[in-house]
């Protein structure tokens, strides 16, 4: 238990503290007031419910991308393609929206809302999941490294979407824009302000609950199901897993599908919850930030909820405090967090292993004498 706390709480906390120091140093060197700038980042986020709402919305999407990265990590795969996968999932929804635009209202209402949402969520997840399965299959059968293939597929996804929106003779875009037609109001996810008027104006929406459910579900999956056990086994030691009768190929492919499917949920949050349509370049790096979210959470699904919130604050503070400090400073801090987490994790792990070995030796010693 003590070990667990050190690994999952102390190490990230130390890393976070260190990266804050790095951020402060940058502010000091560039001549900005250190403490008041930090205060304003936090204040921007929490001074009113609107700010909280915006932070929660960003955190929702970061939870999905963070989970996507974490699940792949647990299977020993470094999925850098979350950005591309979330675009594919979102674009799939955008295309569905394009075809729905012609459908009469009555037909749409003939199917209950819940079923619509379930079906649309499934479409986004499956589309993104299948896209992530491509590098999974390549890795499983040819050994092509997923870091390379997922990065390349990011470009493919962006270019493909660009084509579908601009150059396809049957373009899915609303003429003269780079977005797809909007979903009918009746098919969208309600905003939180629908129930809690204090969030008036904020885009935070019901997909927030999806994020919480997804975190808990992934936590349960990894902890208590056979698939989760096999994913963790392959991630830690593929040879031993193989000898125990687990097929590393199967797990690699399944884990990539699952990872992509989680990335696809960003589409649900953005297309169904926020705008109501797909818009080119809406993510702006959420998939990459998910790597930091997952790392800081030590790939723990419940931890991802917390770290997504933290990065939500930073990300919103970046926009809100734009008048006072350059957003680059915050981006440097985000990078510093990734660095320090990686270093802190390996340092703490080494230290823990050495400490327990010493302890065991002492115990053996006292048993002998």
């Amino acid at each position, binding site marked *: 238990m003590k070990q667990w706390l050190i690994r999952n709480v102390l190490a990230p906390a130390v890393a976070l503290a260190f990266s804050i120091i790095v951020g402060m140093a940058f502010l000091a060197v560039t001549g900005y007031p250190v403490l008041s700038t930090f205060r304003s980042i936090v204040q921007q986020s929490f001074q009113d419910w609107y700010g909280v709402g915006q932070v929660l919305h960003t955190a929702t999407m970061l939870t999905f991308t963070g989970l996507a990265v974490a699940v792949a990590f647990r299977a020993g795969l470094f999925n850098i393609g979350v950005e591309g996968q979330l675009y594919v999932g979102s674009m799939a929804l955008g295309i569905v929206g394009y075809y729905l635009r012609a459908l009469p209202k009555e037909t749409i209402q003939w199917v209950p809302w819940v079923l619509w949402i379930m079906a649309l969520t499934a479409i986004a997840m499956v589309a993104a999941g299948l896209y992530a399965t491509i590098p999974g299959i390549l890795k499983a059968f040819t050994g092509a490294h997923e870091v390379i293939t997922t990065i390349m597929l990011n470009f493919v996804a962006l270019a493909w979407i660009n084509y579908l929106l601009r150059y396809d003779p049957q373009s899915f875009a609303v003429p003269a824009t780079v977005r797809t037609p909007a979903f009918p109001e009746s098919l969208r996810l309600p905003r939180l302000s629908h129930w809690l008027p204090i969030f008036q104006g904020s885009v935070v929406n019901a997909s927030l609950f999806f994020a919480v459910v997804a975190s808990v579900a992934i936590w349960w999956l990894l902890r208590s199901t056979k698939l989760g056990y*096999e994913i963790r086994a392959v991630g830690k030691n593929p*040879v031993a897993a193989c000898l125990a*009768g687990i*097929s590393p190929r199967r797990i690699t492919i399944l884990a990539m599908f699952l990872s992509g499917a989680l990335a696809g949920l960003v589409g649900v949050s953005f297309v169904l919850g926020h705008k109501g349509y797909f818009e080119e370049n809406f993510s702006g790096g959420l998939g990459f930030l998910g790597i930091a979210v997952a790392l800081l959470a030590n790939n723990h699904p419940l931890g991802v909820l917390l770290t997504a919130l933290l990065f939500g604050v930073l990300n919103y503070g970046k926009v809100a405090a734009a008048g006072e400090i350059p957003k680059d400073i915050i981006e440097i801090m985000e990078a510093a967090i990734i660095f320090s987490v990686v270093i802190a994790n390996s340092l703490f792990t080494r230290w823990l292993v050495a400490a327990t070995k010493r302890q*065991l030796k002492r115990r053996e010693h006292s048993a002998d004498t």
Partner: protein
Amino acid sequence: MKMEQQHEWAVEMLEITRAFARVVANDRITFRVRRGEIHALVGENGAGKSTLMKILYGLYRPDSGEIRIFGRHVRFRSPADAIATGIGMVHQHFMLVPPFTVAENVTLGDERVHFGIYRPHEAQARVATLIEQYAMALDPRARVADLSVGEQQRVEILKILYRDARLIILDEPTAVLTPQEVETLFSTIRRLHESGKTIIIITHKLHEVMALSERLTVLRAGKWIATLDTNATTPEEIARLMVGRDVILPTLARDIEKLRQLPVATPAQQNSKPAGEECSRAVTGSNSAPCVPLRVEGVELRRAGRQRPVLSNISFSVSPGEIVGVAGVEGNGQKELIEVLTGLAFPTSGRIFINGHDVTTASPRVKFSAGMACVPEDRQRHGLILDFNLRENLLLGRHHDWRNARHFTWERARRLLEDFDVRPPDPRMRAAQLSGGNQQKLVAAREFTRGATLLVAAHPTRGIDLGAIEFLHGKLLELRARGVGILLISSELGEILALSDRVLVMYGGKIVFEAPNCGLSERDLGIYMAGGTVAQVVDGGGSQS
């Protein structure tokens, strides 16, 4: 220089001790090599040969002890120091840059430059002279990527000569070569010897020792065992020294004898004593094949880049309630045999049956369901997931039946750990936190209780303390009494002789001997482990293909 010329010893390593986290790899080893001789350093894997040579080459620093090279006391901080003293080492894995030419590879790291300019022609000329001097049959302008393994090895030797080495260490140089290439290597070595170089050759192939060396040193379990004149010894004696008489087993023998008296229990298996007889239990999916736990028919395994198969024409079977011991000096195909049996590699030809099911190309999963359990050779890499806790490790392979696996509570895990004396028996600990011996017991706890009818146990007692060895031997015999067929692969000859009903000896990837274990002596087995008859060994053994 003059003093060096006259000094009798090229290498004196005195009372060298080097310990790693848990093992003492070299325990007060004294190792001396005469100037200008070919000295063979022999011993099984893990005997400490490589560690000793890495110390000599400056890769490791000894915890204590003294090293003198040509009479001069030295203390190396890195291989660079060793190279400067005139020591060169050819590693088992070549360290060459494939797209570079022979000359470029040879001069790499020691490019003689003039005012910062590298002159390739000069280097090439010098390399060409060396090639001629030692008749190496190499083109200095050839790309290393285009060379055969044997030629690449010669480039490695050239690299050493280019740096004016007087003492050359060859680490298992024949492991990767074809018989013809071995011949060429031997003549190169002899030529080096004639030109006055001192040569240390690390090997565990006895016919090479006999064919090449003038003297030899045997290490076992990190200790110096003997230094002998090659002419005054026999391969059997060397084999016996390498493998060692097991000091613990005689005391155990009585208990084991008692356990062996236990009747083979299961009625279904009692009437199937002789191998190949029909078993009463119906085997689904196969047309009433005899229910032998393991039957291997003519298995051959070839590896890319090797001309000779690493396993050839392996045939044997294991009956219910029988322990079949596989003896042999390590590196004679045991590792490959395990890989083929567990499913890490597939045989090039031949067939494998587990309880009558053809599992020649089956996945480990299928082999498990056919009734196999396996204690793999490398417990850390193949047997355990070090980051998992002990309960999760015990679940490996059992987890396929997830419903039942969920009933495998912490409490049950604890009891199983206690049964197998894993210390501490705390199922929440991670496997990485256990000592090597306890990790081994953990693997045994899982595999012995799987309910399998065939157990493949590779070195099940390696590296664990005497009490634990005794304990695991007892468990093996218990399984045998319950009618489980056991294939025991071990480098401990004493263990094999104490436990087995039948003994096989592997040499050069073949089974060269098979007999029931009655009246066999370590000496007899030693002859077969050394490659058959004395005559065959003396005239070069494996070199005639």
